[in-house]
């Protein structure tokens, strides 16, 4: 591997206009819901009005009799799958649970759980048909609270479920799907050595990714058993594999075309509608389109876990953390699979802790099955750890950034899960935060209301996983880059820039394409902060391969040895004879005489992942009358390895921060006693608008990732981790109350302030 230090970047680090930009500002870009095919039918899904109920019968006859209705399916028409785990690449999935989440069989497990689907000549007819389907339910007791779901007397969702990860096997039905523990050192001795110990409990609500584009799918089933799915997804190869598993079809018989995607944040890494669209298309012989309503998105796709967390930290007078004990239970939703493992692995990521014990529990309850959401599991855990560290700092009279620096992780620090960090930028972000203009500035006092400044840090991984790329040289000396990574936030641009850097072209001379499952090698999802790292790695290798071939072609033309040809900045030259150097443009036009066209391919599964650290600073103003929190100023500092396109790196940070602010202050799944989500729309599921936020300042720290030829780290996820804790800490500095429950909405803050005043 070449050292990134030797690189003098020409394209990487600049800010070209993204290649798909014009299509997206003119309305020409085709998203999944924009697809229309001749003869296309429209589907709708009937969903459970109960949180937990047995399905006694479903009568679809009246719906089928409605003019325009072409097919109705229920869970009985999906293949029955054996229990067990299927490894999709490195990701374990349970096809039986997945299938049952897509369409209920004998029981519905949450309000919104799909029970039937209709295909009709228009979406309105399909909707009318839903009202004609008669479902007889036997309502069962339900459970919505993670700790109540763990109790012995809790209603059981999945009768076959047994806790995995325990030392002793139990045959008792349970809602605890798994438990895990990380432990090292001597916990008791660690706490004994501490001068100050702080312990607090935290509760966080289930929240949604909130992408603006609802889920969609169009499927065309062909008579020869082959079929095509058009869909807005974070991973076309995953959709193919999951549909094949659920429908028991050969995966190569399904072609998945990734349309433009209107946001995902982890939520579009699985399937909901795709298998139903395929089944309805098979039944009717026509293309079928399904698009969710916003309410369906909130009620029936995968939000991230609400959680209960207990966090106890001890430190000596000089600020050294001596012990950490953390216990967390995460809501998985109706089927196992919360991100509690990642929560356990990231909670103490920014810190050196020798004595620790972290317990995590994955718990099913009657809410939608959770799915990935930006740094899944880490934000919940960070709320606990970062708030308690703030309290330690306060009690010890140490600056909150300084206590983080004293304990900060660095190269060689062992992570809670064991592996040691390679070169990381944790300390560098803390230093940059401390010397930032924001941290050095006095607190603003616009209205005379209480104001406070808070800080928090965060840690998240960088997934490697599999990626493929192809680089081909055009006859005019430009290049095409084909990848399998759907572009959610500018990754076409970053992949094109990496190819341009290697080929010595401008960013504009490289044309990036996102390909379907039959046009590029396997590529895992756009997620895990991995695309610019791993797909970028494949692009780098493919472009290197193209360069090798270009040198071969020039050697053939010049009748010299291949090793005598050099390639630099888009120019081929001959080392030791008098050949006139050729630009790539000149060489490209002559390839037909020198062995033919040039392309390079690469498929990778890179291991040199570069974890990411962030430190955020926020100033808030609290209205003591209403409990409303105003964000006055926000600065996000992050180690980004090497920012390929700094504007889109800033964009990831600003967007993740805004999501974290929403999570902190407003967003929550609000259930009534019947287990119905009462705020399943954007009016009441209140995400930040631009009026709720200030400009979000970013400071990019670049500590190159030694595991990547260009120093690239994942950057997309960690910015959502610090905001709730940073804001909680700022609120404390403003009004003296420690908020331990998300969201920190006005009623909760008013209550906390009133309780504090009552104590006085």
């Amino acid at each position, binding site marked *: 591997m070449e050292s990134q230090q030797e690189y003098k970047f020409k394209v990487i680090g600049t800010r070209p206009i993204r290649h798909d930009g014009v299509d997206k500002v003119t309305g020409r870009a085709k998203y999944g819901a924009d697809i*229309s095919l001749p003869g296309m039918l429209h589907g709708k899904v009937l969903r459970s009005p109960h949180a937990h109920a047995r399905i006694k019968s479903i009568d679809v006859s009246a719906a089928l009799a409605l003019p325009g209705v072409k097919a109705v399916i229920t869970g009985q028409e999906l293949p029955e799958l054996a229990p067990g785990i299927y490894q999709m690449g490195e990701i374990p999935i349970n096809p039986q649970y997945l299938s049952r989440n897509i369409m209920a069989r004998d029981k519905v497990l949450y309000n919104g759980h799909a029970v039937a689907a209709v295909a009709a000549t228009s979406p309105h007819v399909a909707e009318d048909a839903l009202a004609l389907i008669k479902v007889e339910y036997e309502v069962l007791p339900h459970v919505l609270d993670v700790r109540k779901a763990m109790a012995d007397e809790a209603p059981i969702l999945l009768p076959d479920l047994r806790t995995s990860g325990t030392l002793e096997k139990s045959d008792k039905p349970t809602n605890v799907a798994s438990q895990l523990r990380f432990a090292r050192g001597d916990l008791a001795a660690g706490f004994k050595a501490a001068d100050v110990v702080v312990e607090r409990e935290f509760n966080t609500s289930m929240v949604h990714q909130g992408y603006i584009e609802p889920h969609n799918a169009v499927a065309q089933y062909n008579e020869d058993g082959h079929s095509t799915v058009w869909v807005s997804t974070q991973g076309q190869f995953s959709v193919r594999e999951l549909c094949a598993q659920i429908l028991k079809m050969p995966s190569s018989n399904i072609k998945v075309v990734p349309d433009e995607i209107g946001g995902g944040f982890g939520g579009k890494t699985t399937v909901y509608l795709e298998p139903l669209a395929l089944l309805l298309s098979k039944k009717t012989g026509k293309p079928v389109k399904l698009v969710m309503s916003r309410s369906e998105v909130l009620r029936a796709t995968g939000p991230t876990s609400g959680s209960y967390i207990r966090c106890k930290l001890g430190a000596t007078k000089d600020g050294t953390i001596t012990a950490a004990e953390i216990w967390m239970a995460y809501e998985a939703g109706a089927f196992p699979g919360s991100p509690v493992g990642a929560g356990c692995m990231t909670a103490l990521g920014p810190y050196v802790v020798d004595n620790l014990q972290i317990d995590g529990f994955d718990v099913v309850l009657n809410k939608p099955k959770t799915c990935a959401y930006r740094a899944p599991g880490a934000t919940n855990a960070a709320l606990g750890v970062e708030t308690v560290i703030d309290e330690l700092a306060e009690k010890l009279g140490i600056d909150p950034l300084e206590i983080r620096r004293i304990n900060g992780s660095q190269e060689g620090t062992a992570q809670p899960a064991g592996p040691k960090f390679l070169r990381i930028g944790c300390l560098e972000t803390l230093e940059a935060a401390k010397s930032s203009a924001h941290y050095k500035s006095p607190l603003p006092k616009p209205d005379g209301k209480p104001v406070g400044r808070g800080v928090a840090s965060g840690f998240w991984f960088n997934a490697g996983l599999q990626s493929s790329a192809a680089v081909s040289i055009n006859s005019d000396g430009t290049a095409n880059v084909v990848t399998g990574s759907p572009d959610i936030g500018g990754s076409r641009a970053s992949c094109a820039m990496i190819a341009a850097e290697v080929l010595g072209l401008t960013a504009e001379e490289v044309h990036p394409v996102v390909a379907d499952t039959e046009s590029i090698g396997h590529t895992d999802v756009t997620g895990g902060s991995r695309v610019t790292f791993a797909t970028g790695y494949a692009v780098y290798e493919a472009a290197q391969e193209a360069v090798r071939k270009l040198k071969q072609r020039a050697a053939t033309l010049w009748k010299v040895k291949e090793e005598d040809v050099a390639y630099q900045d888009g120019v081929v030259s001959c080392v030791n004879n008098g050949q006139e150097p050729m630009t790539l443009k000149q060489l490209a036009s002559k390839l037909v005489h020198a062995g033919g066209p040039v392309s390079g391919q690469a498929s990778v599964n890179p291991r040199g992942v570069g974890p990411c650290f962030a430190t955020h600073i926020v100033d808030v103003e609290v209205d003591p009358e209403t409990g409303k929190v105003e964000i006055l100023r926000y600065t996000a500092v992050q180690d980004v390895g090497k920012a390929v396109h700094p504007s889109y790196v800033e964009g990831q940070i600003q967007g993740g921060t805004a999501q974290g602010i929403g999570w902190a202050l407003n967003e929550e799944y609000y259930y009534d006693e019947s287990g119905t989500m009462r705020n399943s*729309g954007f009016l009441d599921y209140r995400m930040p608008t*631009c009026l709720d936020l200030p400009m979000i300042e970013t400071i990019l720290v670049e500590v190159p990732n030694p595991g990547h030829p260009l120093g690239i780290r994942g950057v997309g996820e960690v910015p959502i981790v610090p905001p709730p804790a940073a804001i909680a800490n700022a609120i404390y500095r403003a009004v003296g109350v420690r908020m331990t429950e998300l969201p920190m909405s006005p009623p909760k803050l008013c209550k906390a302030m009133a309780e504090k005043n009552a104590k006085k």
Partner: protein
Amino acid sequence: MANKVHVETTLNGEAVEFLCEPRQSLLEVLRDVLGFTGTKEGCLTGDCGACSVILDGRISCSCLVLGVEAQGKNIQTVEGLAQADKLHPLQQKFLEHAALQCGICTPGFLVAAKALLDRNPNPTEHEVRYGLAGNLCRCTGYDKIVRAVLDAAAVMQGR
């Protein structure tokens, strides 16, 4: 066909006729009847602004307007912003400022920003934020969107 209504309207400066069911929204007519899919659906309840159009000079959520209500009206959509082969300054500034990530909210933001600048050519940052508060973006944190609109306003004012 008997239940469809004949509607005459003006779309991006062109006279347009269509047939629609009385229950179809203007959003559905634009997208599914007329094929103008640049206007996006995000919520169907008027809360996200992805379906924003300018209706007789006023910013409107096309999901809350019926297709039949477009009779005799003047509708502007994102497809009408660029003139010939030249992008509108707002479109150009959105590109330069990287004011979009996934792009699904972008048409609605551009249309809302156009409506804002039509009535207030020289807005402050707060006025931009107020004017765009009916549009949700989940990717950008709005920072670069607000900068792009302020910059476009400056360019359009010849500054």
